[in-house]
């Protein structure tokens, strides 16, 4: 059985014929070639696969592509503005050294954007609690928190 899905990805219409078993993250990475969204744990623990579905952060490894039928999806590639200008959250991660290997970064940035959308001026404790679903093996989180604070201060 295949099902056709039509969705908007980073502002562009996309459609694909998928096996209902296909995960959204595989549609994005393998069919739409948007490899910025990473797969870390594949078990809903690490947040590396975080994208925005109709404006809300979700784990793309934990949903089926068919569940995104008709939805508006934003991936890390869709955050950059015209002329590849980085999003302020990406700039802040770079400025504050909020990444080392970078594996967790796309998910971290997508989560952090949702965090500030819900709570534009979070405290440090609120940032740490808000990023609970994203795991980083490298940075020790300190500079990630600084980056979110910088992005919040600039917004």
């Amino acid at each position, binding site marked *: 059985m295949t*099902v056709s899905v039509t969705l908007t990805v980073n502002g562009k219409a996309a459609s694909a014929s998928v096996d209902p078993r296909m995960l959204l993250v595989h549609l994005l990475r393998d069919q739409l070639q948007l490899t910025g969204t990473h797969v870390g744990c594949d078990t809903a623990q690490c947040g590396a696969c975080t994208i925005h579905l109709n404006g809300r952060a*979700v*784990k793309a490894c*934990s949903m089926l592509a068919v*569940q995104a039928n008709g939805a508006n999806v934003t991936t890390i590639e869709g955050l950059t503005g015209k002329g590849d200008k980085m999003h302020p959250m990406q700039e802040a991660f770079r400025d504050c050294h909020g990444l080392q290997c970078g594996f967790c970064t796309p998910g971290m940035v997508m989560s952090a954007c*949702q965090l500030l959308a819900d709570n534009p001026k979070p405290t440090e404790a609120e940032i740490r609690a808000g990023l*609970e*679903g994203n795991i980083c093996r490298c940075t020790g989180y300190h500079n990630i928190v600084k980056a979110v604070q910088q992005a919040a201060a600039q917004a």
Partner: protein
Amino acid sequence: MYAFEYQNPSTAAAAIGSAKGDARFLAGGQSLVQAMKLRLSQTGTLVDLSGIAELKGISVAGSNVIIGAMTRHSEVARSAEVKQAIPALADLAGGIGDQMVRNQGTLGGSIANADPAACYPAAILGLGATIKASVGQKERAITGDSFFTGLFETTLAPGELITSVEFPVPDCAAYVKFKQPASRFALVGVFVAKFGSTVRVAVTGAKSSVFRATDIEAALSKSFTPEAAAAVKVSANGMNGDMHGSAEYRAAMVSVMAGRAVARALG
């Protein structure tokens, strides 16, 4: 993941009609998609509930808050109506997992799944909620006290769809969980609610299924204070013991968490 047929009906009646044989409902998928990926669960037909508008939404009617089965945890957490009527419920929903889990996971999925460490079951028992469910042409109202029957088990019949849950508004209530830090589920979570002179205390995470701590309820009915709850010695009989905490540890934590919940309920 094993192959399945996918259906996405737009009405509850159509969803119930599709739920034949070993068909499963798909809500947020935060538990079910994981289980299917690990081949712990398989189904011939997956019936996606996300396109059914009548299963979504929050309303207040008289002294009840009614929440549709497909309402996401984050919607309950942010709802002005829930925050006003039962702040403890908004708080509970806002403490489930992480923001991505909350954006996808639903009330109906959480209680149908009946994870022994899940948060919502504590609110179902703690508030004495009523679960509305339908199978075939039959609609019924299930009392919270009779809904959970064991480890990942409920009284739902095969193919029975939860449509909504009615939560009575208490005088005051609070939910406090001691988190298992890796999973963020409750190692022990206690929901306390006061309705006039009646006090309900529900405990999750500690046994194979959520339960009411009747000794603590009796103590709190006499004196609704943190000290009264914390002074009750809870038996370790039937408590879960694992690498995260022994049965005795969990038993002790029930009184501690109940005391904290009373303190929070009193504001």
